[in-house]
Protein backbone atom coordinates (compact mmCIF):
# COMPACT_ATOMS: atom_id res chain seq x y z
CA UNK A 1 0.00 0.00 0.00
CA UNK A 2 1.24 3.45 -0.86
CA UNK A 3 1.71 5.81 2.05
CA UNK A 4 0.92 8.85 -0.08
CA UNK A 5 -1.18 8.77 -3.19
CA UNK A 6 -1.99 11.90 -5.17
CA UNK A 7 -4.68 11.51 -7.81
CA UNK A 8 -4.87 14.33 -10.34
CA UNK A 9 -4.47 16.93 -7.62
CA UNK A 10 -5.19 20.38 -8.96
CA UNK A 11 -5.21 23.63 -7.04
CA UNK A 12 -5.96 27.10 -8.28
CA UNK A 13 -5.90 30.12 -5.99
CA UNK A 14 -8.63 32.04 -7.75
CA UNK A 15 -7.10 32.26 -11.19
CA UNK A 16 -3.54 31.84 -10.01
CA UNK A 17 -2.00 28.47 -10.68
CA UNK A 18 -1.03 26.35 -7.72
CA UNK A 19 -0.54 22.86 -9.06
CA UNK A 20 -2.10 21.10 -12.05
CA UNK A 21 -2.99 17.43 -12.37
CA UNK A 22 -0.37 16.11 -9.98
CA UNK A 23 -0.36 12.33 -9.56
CA UNK A 24 2.21 10.15 -7.87
CA UNK A 25 2.68 7.59 -5.15
CA UNK A 26 5.11 7.40 -2.28
CA UNK A 27 5.74 3.92 -0.92
CA UNK A 28 6.22 2.96 2.67
CA UNK A 29 9.75 3.45 3.96
CA UNK A 30 11.05 5.52 1.11
CA UNK A 31 12.52 8.99 1.07
CA UNK A 32 10.80 10.76 -1.73
CA UNK A 33 12.40 13.93 -3.02
CA UNK A 34 10.24 16.64 -4.46
CA UNK A 35 12.27 19.16 -6.33
CA UNK A 36 11.48 22.29 -8.19
CA UNK A 37 12.29 25.98 -8.21
CA UNK A 38 10.51 28.50 -5.99
CA UNK A 39 6.86 28.89 -6.87
CA UNK A 40 6.67 25.56 -8.65
CA UNK A 41 3.99 24.28 -6.26
CA UNK A 42 5.97 22.26 -3.72
CA UNK A 43 4.47 23.87 -0.65
CA UNK A 44 1.01 23.88 -2.22
CA UNK A 45 1.26 20.12 -2.69
CA UNK A 46 2.29 19.56 0.92
CA UNK A 47 -0.43 21.87 2.24
CA UNK A 48 -2.98 19.91 0.24
CA UNK A 49 -1.77 16.68 1.86
CA UNK A 50 -2.14 18.32 5.28
CA UNK A 51 -5.59 19.70 4.33
CA UNK A 52 -4.56 23.22 5.22
CA UNK A 53 -5.98 24.01 1.80
CA UNK A 54 -8.46 22.07 -0.30
CA UNK A 55 -7.95 20.92 -3.89
CA UNK A 56 -9.84 22.50 -6.77
CA UNK A 57 -10.12 19.00 -8.18
CA UNK A 58 -8.54 15.61 -7.65
CA UNK A 59 -7.85 13.95 -4.34
CA UNK A 60 -5.12 12.51 -2.19
CA UNK A 61 -4.88 9.68 0.29
CA UNK A 62 -2.42 9.12 3.11
CA UNK A 63 -2.11 5.63 4.62
CA UNK A 64 -4.96 4.77 2.26
CA UNK A 65 -7.37 7.29 3.76
CA UNK A 66 -8.69 10.48 2.25
CA UNK A 67 -6.50 13.28 3.53
CA UNK A 68 -9.37 15.72 4.05
CA UNK A 69 -12.00 13.46 5.57
CA UNK A 70 -9.55 11.74 7.90
CA UNK A 71 -7.18 14.70 8.22
CA UNK A 72 -7.15 15.12 12.01
CA UNK A 73 -6.81 11.38 12.59
CA UNK A 74 -4.04 11.03 9.99
CA UNK A 75 -2.09 13.94 11.42
CA UNK A 76 -1.44 11.94 14.60
CA UNK A 77 1.13 10.05 12.57
CA UNK A 78 2.39 12.93 10.49
CA UNK A 79 5.28 15.23 11.28
CA UNK A 80 5.56 18.48 9.38
CA UNK A 81 8.45 20.89 9.09
CA UNK A 82 7.34 23.94 7.11
CA UNK A 83 9.78 25.99 5.07
CA UNK A 84 9.16 29.03 7.26
CA UNK A 85 8.61 28.19 10.89
CA UNK A 86 6.16 30.32 12.84
CA UNK A 87 5.21 29.68 16.43
CA UNK A 88 3.49 31.65 19.15
CA UNK A 89 6.12 34.31 19.66
CA UNK A 90 5.57 34.89 23.34
CA UNK A 91 5.94 31.27 24.41
CA UNK A 92 9.09 29.66 25.67
CA UNK A 93 10.53 26.89 23.55
CA UNK A 94 9.90 24.25 26.21
CA UNK A 95 6.29 25.37 26.73
CA UNK A 96 5.66 25.29 23.02
CA UNK A 97 7.09 21.79 22.69
CA UNK A 98 5.07 20.56 25.66
CA UNK A 99 1.97 22.18 24.18
CA UNK A 100 2.61 20.42 20.90
CA UNK A 101 3.23 17.11 22.68
CA UNK A 102 -0.05 17.42 24.59
CA UNK A 103 -1.98 16.74 21.37
CA UNK A 104 -0.62 13.24 20.97
CA UNK A 105 -1.70 10.17 22.90
CA UNK A 106 1.76 8.81 23.57
CA UNK A 107 4.21 10.28 26.04
CA UNK A 108 6.63 12.38 24.02
CA UNK A 109 8.74 13.76 26.86
CA UNK A 110 11.77 11.54 26.46
CA UNK A 111 11.96 11.87 22.69
CA UNK A 112 11.49 15.62 23.01
CA UNK A 113 14.53 16.02 25.28
CA UNK A 114 16.60 13.66 23.13
CA UNK A 115 15.89 15.68 20.02
CA UNK A 116 16.39 19.00 21.77
CA UNK A 117 19.79 17.87 22.98
CA UNK A 118 20.74 16.58 19.55
CA UNK A 119 19.75 19.84 17.87
CA UNK A 120 21.41 21.85 20.67
CA UNK A 121 18.20 23.70 21.36
CA UNK A 122 17.98 26.26 24.16
CA UNK A 123 14.71 25.28 25.76
CA UNK A 124 14.15 28.24 28.04
CA UNK A 125 14.32 31.05 25.54
CA UNK A 126 11.30 32.77 24.11
CA UNK A 127 10.41 31.97 20.51
CA UNK A 128 10.52 35.68 19.60
CA UNK A 129 14.17 35.89 20.68
CA UNK A 130 15.30 33.03 18.45
CA UNK A 131 17.14 33.44 15.16
CA UNK A 132 15.72 31.95 11.96
CA UNK A 133 17.98 28.92 12.22
CA UNK A 134 17.06 28.32 15.86
CA UNK A 135 13.35 28.53 15.05
CA UNK A 136 13.97 25.93 12.40
CA UNK A 137 15.54 23.69 15.05
CA UNK A 138 12.44 24.10 17.20
CA UNK A 139 10.47 23.06 14.12
CA UNK A 140 12.56 19.93 13.72
CA UNK A 141 12.04 18.88 17.33
CA UNK A 142 8.35 19.76 17.22
CA UNK A 143 7.85 17.85 13.97
CA UNK A 144 9.55 14.71 15.25
CA UNK A 145 8.75 14.50 18.96
CA UNK A 146 5.63 12.37 18.52
CA UNK A 147 7.51 9.78 16.46
CA UNK A 148 5.46 10.18 13.30
CA UNK A 149 5.27 7.51 10.63
CA UNK A 150 5.30 10.04 7.84
CA UNK A 151 7.35 13.20 7.60
CA UNK A 152 6.74 16.19 5.38
CA UNK A 153 9.86 18.31 5.12
CA UNK A 154 9.48 21.53 3.16
CA UNK A 155 12.91 22.94 2.31
CA UNK A 156 14.13 21.84 5.71
CA UNK A 157 17.76 22.88 5.51
CA UNK A 158 17.24 26.58 4.88
CA UNK A 159 18.70 28.51 7.81
CA UNK A 160 20.66 25.60 9.26
CA UNK A 161 24.44 25.80 9.33
CA UNK A 162 26.36 23.00 7.57
CA UNK A 163 27.05 21.17 10.83
CA UNK A 164 23.38 21.21 11.77
CA UNK A 165 22.43 20.19 8.25
CA UNK A 166 24.60 17.12 8.60
CA UNK A 167 23.08 16.25 11.96
CA UNK A 168 19.67 16.79 10.51
CA UNK A 169 20.29 14.49 7.54
CA UNK A 170 21.65 11.88 9.90
CA UNK A 171 18.51 12.21 12.00
CA UNK A 172 16.27 11.82 8.96
CA UNK A 173 18.22 8.73 7.85
CA UNK A 174 17.81 7.19 11.30
CA UNK A 175 14.08 7.94 11.28
CA UNK A 176 13.89 6.39 7.84
CA UNK A 177 15.69 3.26 9.00
CA UNK A 178 13.05 2.90 11.69
CA UNK A 179 10.51 2.73 8.88
CA UNK A 180 9.45 6.35 8.63
CA UNK A 181 8.40 7.49 5.18
CA UNK A 182 9.80 10.88 4.24
CA UNK A 183 8.50 13.41 1.74
CA UNK A 184 11.34 15.82 1.19
CA UNK A 185 10.79 18.99 -0.77
CA UNK A 186 13.75 21.05 -1.83
CA UNK A 187 15.16 23.22 -4.54
CA UNK A 188 18.68 21.98 -3.85
CA UNK A 189 19.39 19.01 -6.06
CA UNK A 190 22.50 17.97 -4.16
CA UNK A 191 20.75 17.33 -0.86
CA UNK A 192 17.93 15.48 -2.58
CA UNK A 193 20.44 13.30 -4.37
CA UNK A 194 22.22 12.53 -1.11
CA UNK A 195 19.13 11.50 0.76
CA UNK A 196 16.36 10.33 -1.52
CA UNK A 197 15.47 7.06 -3.22
CA UNK A 198 13.12 8.56 -5.72
CA UNK A 199 12.37 12.06 -6.88
CA UNK A 200 9.52 13.92 -8.45
CA UNK A 201 10.37 17.02 -10.38
CA UNK A 202 7.78 19.79 -10.41
CA UNK A 203 7.87 22.82 -12.63
CA UNK A 204 5.19 25.47 -13.00
CA UNK A 205 2.70 23.35 -11.12
CA UNK A 206 3.11 20.15 -13.09
CA UNK A 207 5.10 17.06 -12.22
CA UNK A 208 7.31 16.63 -15.26
CA UNK A 209 9.31 13.61 -14.17
CA UNK A 210 9.24 10.95 -11.51
CA UNK A 211 12.34 8.83 -11.44
CA UNK A 212 14.53 6.64 -9.36
CA UNK A 213 17.45 8.72 -8.15
CA UNK A 214 19.92 6.30 -9.78
CA UNK A 215 18.29 6.41 -13.19
CA UNK A 216 18.15 10.15 -12.91
CA UNK A 217 21.84 10.28 -12.16
CA UNK A 218 22.65 7.89 -15.00
CA UNK A 219 20.55 9.88 -17.37
CA UNK A 220 21.97 12.97 -15.93
CA UNK A 221 23.69 15.57 -17.92
CA UNK A 222 27.24 16.52 -17.15
CA UNK A 223 28.41 20.02 -17.62
CA UNK A 224 31.76 19.95 -19.39
CA UNK A 225 34.20 22.77 -19.91
CA UNK A 226 37.46 22.19 -21.77
CA UNK A 227 40.14 24.78 -22.36
CA UNK A 228 42.89 23.88 -24.83
CA UNK A 229 45.01 26.01 -27.17
CA UNK A 230 43.87 25.88 -30.76
CA UNK A 231 40.69 24.00 -29.85
CA UNK A 232 37.90 23.91 -32.38
CA UNK A 233 34.21 23.66 -31.45
CA UNK A 234 33.57 20.96 -34.04
CA UNK A 235 35.97 18.67 -32.16
CA UNK A 236 33.29 17.77 -29.64
CA UNK A 237 30.58 17.13 -32.16
CA UNK A 238 29.51 13.84 -30.55
CA UNK A 239 26.11 12.25 -30.08
CA UNK A 240 24.75 13.36 -26.67
CA UNK A 241 26.36 16.77 -26.75
CA UNK A 242 24.03 19.75 -26.47
CA UNK A 243 24.26 23.47 -25.91
CA UNK A 244 27.76 23.62 -27.39
CA UNK A 245 29.40 26.97 -26.86
CA UNK A 246 32.78 28.09 -28.05
CA UNK A 247 34.64 31.11 -26.83
CA UNK A 248 38.38 31.97 -26.68
CA UNK A 249 39.62 28.40 -27.17
CA UNK A 250 37.22 27.24 -24.43
CA UNK A 251 34.40 24.80 -25.19
CA UNK A 252 31.38 24.37 -22.94
CA UNK A 253 28.62 21.85 -23.45
CA UNK A 254 26.21 19.50 -21.76
CA UNK A 255 26.73 15.82 -22.28
CA UNK A 256 24.38 12.94 -21.73
CA UNK A 257 25.61 9.39 -22.29
CA UNK A 258 28.70 7.34 -21.62
CA UNK A 259 31.15 9.73 -20.05
CA UNK A 260 34.09 7.62 -21.33
CA UNK A 261 33.47 8.79 -24.87
CA UNK A 262 34.10 12.36 -23.79
CA UNK A 263 37.04 11.35 -21.61
CA UNK A 264 38.76 9.71 -24.59
CA UNK A 265 38.20 12.80 -26.69
CA UNK A 266 39.65 14.99 -23.96
CA UNK A 267 42.56 12.54 -23.51
CA UNK A 268 43.69 13.15 -27.06
CA UNK A 269 44.03 16.86 -26.39
CA UNK A 270 46.69 18.84 -24.58
CA UNK A 271 44.38 20.76 -22.30
CA UNK A 272 45.10 23.73 -20.07
CA UNK A 273 41.98 23.23 -17.96
CA UNK A 274 39.07 20.79 -17.65
CA UNK A 275 35.99 20.75 -15.45
CA UNK A 276 33.25 18.16 -15.51
CA UNK A 277 30.47 18.87 -13.07
CA UNK A 278 26.83 18.33 -12.23
CA UNK A 279 24.63 20.84 -13.88
CA UNK A 280 22.65 23.10 -11.56
CA UNK A 281 19.01 22.34 -11.04
CA UNK A 282 18.06 25.21 -13.30
CA UNK A 283 20.19 23.77 -16.07
CA UNK A 284 18.52 20.39 -15.67
CA UNK A 285 15.15 22.04 -15.88
CA UNK A 286 16.20 23.73 -19.08
CA UNK A 287 16.82 20.30 -20.52
CA UNK A 288 13.46 19.04 -19.34
CA UNK A 289 11.93 21.83 -21.32
CA UNK A 290 13.70 21.22 -24.60
Amino acid at each position, binding site marked *: MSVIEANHLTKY*YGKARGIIDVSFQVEEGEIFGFIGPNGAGKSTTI*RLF*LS*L*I*YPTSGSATIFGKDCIKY*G*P*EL*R*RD*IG*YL*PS*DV*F*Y*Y*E*RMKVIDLLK*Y*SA*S*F*YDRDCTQRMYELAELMELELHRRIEDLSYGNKKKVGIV*QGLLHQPKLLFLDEPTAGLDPLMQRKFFQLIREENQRGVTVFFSSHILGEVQRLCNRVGIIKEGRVIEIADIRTLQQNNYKKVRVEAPGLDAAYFDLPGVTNLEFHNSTVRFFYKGDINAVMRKIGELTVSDVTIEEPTLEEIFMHYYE
Partner: protein
Amino acid sequence: MNILVRELKANLRSLLIWGAIVILFTVLGLSKFSAYAGNPEMLAVLDAMPPAMLAALNMQAFNLTTVTGFFGIMFTYFALLLSIAAAMWGSDIISKEERDKTVEFSLTLPVTRSRLVTAKALAALVNCVGLLLITWGVSLAGAAKYQPDREFYRFLGLCMLALFIMQLIFLAIGIFLGCAMKRYRRASSVAVSLLLGTYFLSVLSSLDQDLDWLKYVTPFKYFDPGMLLRESRLDLTFVGLSLAIILMSMVGAYLTYNRRDLYI
Protein backbone atom coordinates in the same frame (compact mmCIF):
# COMPACT_ATOMS: atom_id res chain seq x y z
CA MET B 1 -8.52 21.76 26.90
CA ASN B 2 -4.88 22.47 26.04
CA ILE B 3 -5.91 24.96 23.37
CA LEU B 4 -8.28 26.69 25.79
CA VAL B 5 -5.66 27.02 28.51
CA ARG B 6 -3.07 28.36 26.09
CA GLU B 7 -5.50 30.89 24.66
CA LEU B 8 -6.52 32.03 28.13
CA LYS B 9 -2.90 32.65 29.05
CA ALA B 10 -2.24 34.42 25.77
CA ASN B 11 -5.30 36.65 26.21
CA LEU B 12 -4.99 37.42 29.91
CA ARG B 13 -3.07 40.62 29.28
CA SER B 14 -5.75 41.89 26.95
CA LEU B 15 -8.42 41.17 29.58
CA LEU B 16 -6.45 43.09 32.20
CA ILE B 17 -6.05 46.07 29.88
CA TRP B 18 -9.77 46.15 29.07
CA GLY B 19 -10.56 45.67 32.76
CA ALA B 20 -8.39 48.68 33.58
CA ILE B 21 -10.17 50.74 30.91
CA VAL B 22 -13.59 49.86 32.34
CA ILE B 23 -12.47 50.61 35.90
CA LEU B 24 -10.92 53.93 34.89
CA PHE B 25 -14.04 54.83 32.94
CA THR B 26 -16.33 54.03 35.87
CA VAL B 27 -14.16 55.93 38.33
CA LEU B 28 -14.17 59.00 36.06
CA GLY B 29 -17.94 58.71 35.61
CA LEU B 30 -18.50 58.38 39.32
CA SER B 31 -16.34 61.38 40.10
CA LYS B 32 -18.57 63.47 37.80
CA PHE B 33 -21.68 61.93 39.28
CA SER B 34 -20.63 62.95 42.78
CA ALA B 35 -21.24 66.54 41.64
CA TYR B 36 -24.76 65.75 40.41
CA ALA B 37 -25.83 63.43 43.19
CA GLY B 38 -28.85 64.83 45.00
CA ASN B 39 -28.32 68.22 43.34
CA PRO B 40 -31.63 69.76 42.19
CA GLU B 41 -29.88 72.46 40.13
CA MET B 42 -28.55 69.75 37.89
CA LEU B 43 -32.09 68.63 37.13
CA ALA B 44 -32.97 72.16 36.12
CA VAL B 45 -30.00 72.27 33.74
CA LEU B 46 -31.01 68.99 32.17
CA ASP B 47 -34.62 70.12 31.79
CA ALA B 48 -33.42 73.11 29.82
CA MET B 49 -31.57 70.94 27.30
CA PRO B 50 -33.23 70.08 23.96
CA PRO B 51 -35.06 66.72 24.18
CA ALA B 52 -33.41 65.43 20.98
CA MET B 53 -30.02 65.83 22.55
CA LEU B 54 -31.10 64.01 25.66
CA ALA B 55 -32.52 61.23 23.52
CA ALA B 56 -29.28 60.93 21.59
CA LEU B 57 -27.34 60.62 24.82
CA ASN B 58 -29.95 58.23 26.16
CA MET B 59 -30.60 60.52 29.09
CA GLN B 60 -34.37 60.96 28.86
CA ALA B 61 -35.45 58.11 31.01
CA PHE B 62 -33.27 58.78 33.97
CA ASN B 63 -32.97 61.09 36.82
CA LEU B 64 -29.28 61.83 36.70
CA THR B 65 -29.14 62.87 40.30
CA THR B 66 -29.77 59.31 41.55
CA VAL B 67 -27.31 56.48 41.41
CA THR B 68 -29.80 54.35 39.43
CA GLY B 69 -30.07 57.16 36.90
CA PHE B 70 -26.33 57.41 36.69
CA PHE B 71 -25.89 53.73 35.90
CA GLY B 72 -28.75 54.00 33.41
CA ILE B 73 -26.60 56.46 31.48
CA MET B 74 -23.45 54.42 32.04
CA PHE B 75 -25.18 51.40 30.51
CA THR B 76 -24.73 52.74 26.98
CA TYR B 77 -21.04 53.34 27.52
CA PHE B 78 -20.52 49.98 29.18
CA ALA B 79 -22.36 48.41 26.26
CA LEU B 80 -20.00 50.11 23.81
CA LEU B 81 -16.84 49.19 25.71
CA LEU B 82 -17.80 45.61 26.40
CA SER B 83 -19.10 45.02 22.88
CA ILE B 84 -15.98 46.44 21.28
CA ALA B 85 -13.83 44.20 23.46
CA ALA B 86 -15.99 41.18 22.58
CA ALA B 87 -15.92 41.91 18.83
CA MET B 88 -12.16 42.36 18.87
CA TRP B 89 -11.51 39.24 20.92
CA GLY B 90 -13.82 37.20 18.72
CA SER B 91 -12.34 38.28 15.42
CA ASP B 92 -8.76 38.38 16.61
CA ILE B 93 -8.63 35.03 18.33
CA ILE B 94 -9.30 33.25 15.05
CA SER B 95 -7.63 35.54 12.55
CA LYS B 96 -4.40 36.00 14.51
CA GLU B 97 -3.40 32.42 13.68
CA GLU B 98 -3.32 33.33 10.02
CA ARG B 99 -1.91 36.80 10.59
CA ASP B 100 0.97 35.37 12.63
CA LYS B 101 1.20 32.39 10.26
CA THR B 102 0.96 30.01 13.22
CA VAL B 103 -1.90 28.23 11.51
CA GLU B 104 0.68 26.03 9.80
CA PHE B 105 1.51 24.78 13.28
CA SER B 106 -1.83 24.76 15.07
CA LEU B 107 -3.78 23.08 12.28
CA THR B 108 -1.20 20.47 11.38
CA LEU B 109 -1.61 19.06 14.87
CA PRO B 110 -4.15 16.25 15.13
CA VAL B 111 -7.10 18.57 15.77
CA THR B 112 -10.18 19.35 13.77
CA ARG B 113 -10.79 22.93 12.77
CA SER B 114 -14.05 22.81 14.71
CA ARG B 115 -12.21 21.89 17.89
CA LEU B 116 -9.90 24.85 17.41
CA VAL B 117 -12.82 27.24 16.85
CA THR B 118 -14.67 25.82 19.89
CA ALA B 119 -11.67 26.17 22.20
CA LYS B 120 -10.91 29.66 20.97
CA ALA B 121 -14.54 30.74 21.22
CA LEU B 122 -14.62 29.48 24.80
CA ALA B 123 -11.42 31.34 25.65
CA ALA B 124 -12.89 34.55 24.23
CA LEU B 125 -16.11 33.87 26.13
CA VAL B 126 -14.19 33.49 29.39
CA ASN B 127 -12.58 36.86 28.69
CA CYS B 128 -16.00 38.41 28.07
CA VAL B 129 -17.37 36.99 31.32
CA GLY B 130 -14.26 38.21 33.12
CA LEU B 131 -14.71 41.73 31.80
CA LEU B 132 -18.40 41.64 32.69
CA LEU B 133 -17.57 40.61 36.24
CA ILE B 134 -15.04 43.41 36.48
CA THR B 135 -17.70 45.84 35.26
CA TRP B 136 -20.24 44.50 37.72
CA GLY B 137 -17.76 44.56 40.58
CA VAL B 138 -16.59 48.10 39.99
CA SER B 139 -20.20 49.25 39.61
CA LEU B 140 -21.19 47.69 42.92
CA ALA B 141 -18.14 49.11 44.63
CA GLY B 142 -18.72 52.55 43.15
CA ALA B 143 -22.44 52.62 44.01
CA ALA B 144 -22.02 51.37 47.58
CA LYS B 145 -21.14 54.85 48.81
CA TYR B 146 -24.61 56.14 47.81
CA GLN B 147 -26.41 53.40 49.76
CA PRO B 148 -28.65 52.39 46.85
CA ASP B 149 -31.98 50.63 47.40
CA ARG B 150 -32.81 47.06 46.46
CA GLU B 151 -34.36 48.24 43.23
CA PHE B 152 -30.94 49.48 42.15
CA TYR B 153 -29.31 46.09 42.64
CA ARG B 154 -32.03 44.38 40.64
CA PHE B 155 -31.66 47.00 37.91
CA LEU B 156 -27.89 46.63 37.84
CA GLY B 157 -28.21 42.83 37.64
CA LEU B 158 -30.57 43.14 34.68
CA CYS B 159 -28.19 45.59 33.03
CA MET B 160 -25.37 43.07 33.40
CA LEU B 161 -27.53 40.35 31.87
CA ALA B 162 -28.33 42.65 28.96
CA LEU B 163 -24.65 43.54 28.60
CA PHE B 164 -23.77 39.86 28.58
CA ILE B 165 -26.18 39.17 25.74
CA MET B 166 -24.73 42.08 23.78
CA GLN B 167 -21.23 40.77 24.42
CA LEU B 168 -22.32 37.40 23.09
CA ILE B 169 -23.81 38.98 19.96
CA PHE B 170 -20.64 40.84 19.08
CA LEU B 171 -18.40 38.00 20.14
CA ALA B 172 -20.25 35.67 17.79
CA ILE B 173 -20.19 38.20 14.94
CA GLY B 174 -16.47 38.72 15.55
CA ILE B 175 -15.79 34.99 15.52
CA PHE B 176 -17.81 34.64 12.33
CA LEU B 177 -15.82 37.40 10.63
CA GLY B 178 -12.53 35.90 11.84
CA CYS B 179 -13.54 32.53 10.46
CA ALA B 180 -15.10 33.66 7.22
CA MET B 181 -13.06 36.57 5.97
CA LYS B 182 -10.50 35.86 3.31
CA ARG B 183 -8.79 39.12 4.12
CA TYR B 184 -8.26 38.06 7.70
CA ARG B 185 -6.15 41.10 8.51
CA ARG B 186 -9.28 43.20 8.25
CA ALA B 187 -11.54 40.98 10.35
CA SER B 188 -11.07 43.08 13.50
CA SER B 189 -11.54 46.43 11.83
CA VAL B 190 -14.64 45.21 10.00
CA ALA B 191 -16.06 43.83 13.26
CA VAL B 192 -15.49 47.11 15.10
CA SER B 193 -16.77 49.23 12.18
CA LEU B 194 -19.91 47.14 12.09
CA LEU B 195 -20.32 47.66 15.80
CA LEU B 196 -19.86 51.44 15.65
CA GLY B 197 -22.18 51.54 12.63
CA THR B 198 -24.98 49.84 14.53
CA TYR B 199 -24.33 52.14 17.48
CA PHE B 200 -24.87 55.22 15.33
CA LEU B 201 -28.00 53.63 13.89
CA SER B 202 -29.26 53.30 17.45
CA VAL B 203 -28.58 57.01 18.04
CA LEU B 204 -30.40 57.87 14.80
CA SER B 205 -33.38 55.72 15.67
CA SER B 206 -33.87 57.50 19.00
CA LEU B 207 -33.86 60.88 17.21
CA ASP B 208 -36.60 60.12 14.72
CA GLN B 209 -39.83 58.20 15.30
CA ASP B 210 -39.88 57.15 11.62
CA LEU B 211 -36.66 55.27 12.17
CA ASP B 212 -38.12 53.25 15.01
CA TRP B 213 -37.83 50.03 12.94
CA LEU B 214 -34.05 50.36 13.26
CA LYS B 215 -34.44 48.97 16.76
CA TYR B 216 -34.52 45.52 15.17
CA VAL B 217 -31.30 46.18 13.27
CA THR B 218 -29.06 47.51 15.98
CA PRO B 219 -28.27 45.44 19.07
CA PHE B 220 -27.73 48.72 20.92
CA LYS B 221 -31.52 49.13 20.89
CA TYR B 222 -32.36 45.62 21.98
CA PHE B 223 -32.14 46.38 25.67
CA ASP B 224 -33.16 49.86 26.61
CA PRO B 225 -31.99 50.68 30.16
CA GLY B 226 -35.10 52.83 30.68
CA MET B 227 -37.27 49.82 30.05
CA LEU B 228 -35.07 47.62 32.22
CA LEU B 229 -35.73 50.05 35.06
CA ARG B 230 -39.47 50.48 34.48
CA GLU B 231 -40.39 46.88 33.77
CA SER B 232 -37.61 45.00 35.51
CA ARG B 233 -37.35 42.49 32.69
CA LEU B 234 -35.68 41.91 29.36
CA ASP B 235 -37.83 42.10 26.23
CA LEU B 236 -38.09 38.47 25.16
CA THR B 237 -38.51 39.36 21.48
CA PHE B 238 -35.07 40.85 21.51
CA VAL B 239 -33.61 38.06 23.60
CA GLY B 240 -34.87 35.69 20.90
CA LEU B 241 -33.50 37.90 18.15
CA SER B 242 -30.14 38.01 19.94
CA LEU B 243 -30.01 34.25 20.28
CA ALA B 244 -30.82 33.90 16.58
CA ILE B 245 -27.95 36.23 15.62
CA ILE B 246 -25.55 34.39 17.93
CA LEU B 247 -26.60 30.99 16.64
CA MET B 248 -26.42 32.01 12.99
CA SER B 249 -23.01 33.60 13.42
CA MET B 250 -21.59 30.54 15.16
CA VAL B 251 -23.03 28.09 12.62
CA GLY B 252 -21.69 30.31 9.86
CA ALA B 253 -18.30 30.44 11.59
CA TYR B 254 -17.97 26.65 11.82
CA LEU B 255 -19.20 26.08 8.28
CA THR B 256 -16.95 28.62 6.62
CA TYR B 257 -13.86 27.81 8.65
CA ASN B 258 -14.16 24.12 7.90
CA ARG B 259 -14.60 24.71 4.21
CA ARG B 260 -12.17 27.39 3.33
CA ASP B 261 -8.47 27.41 2.53
CA LEU B 262 -6.23 28.72 5.23
CA TYR B 263 -4.07 31.59 4.13
CA ILE B 264 -0.44 31.16 4.94
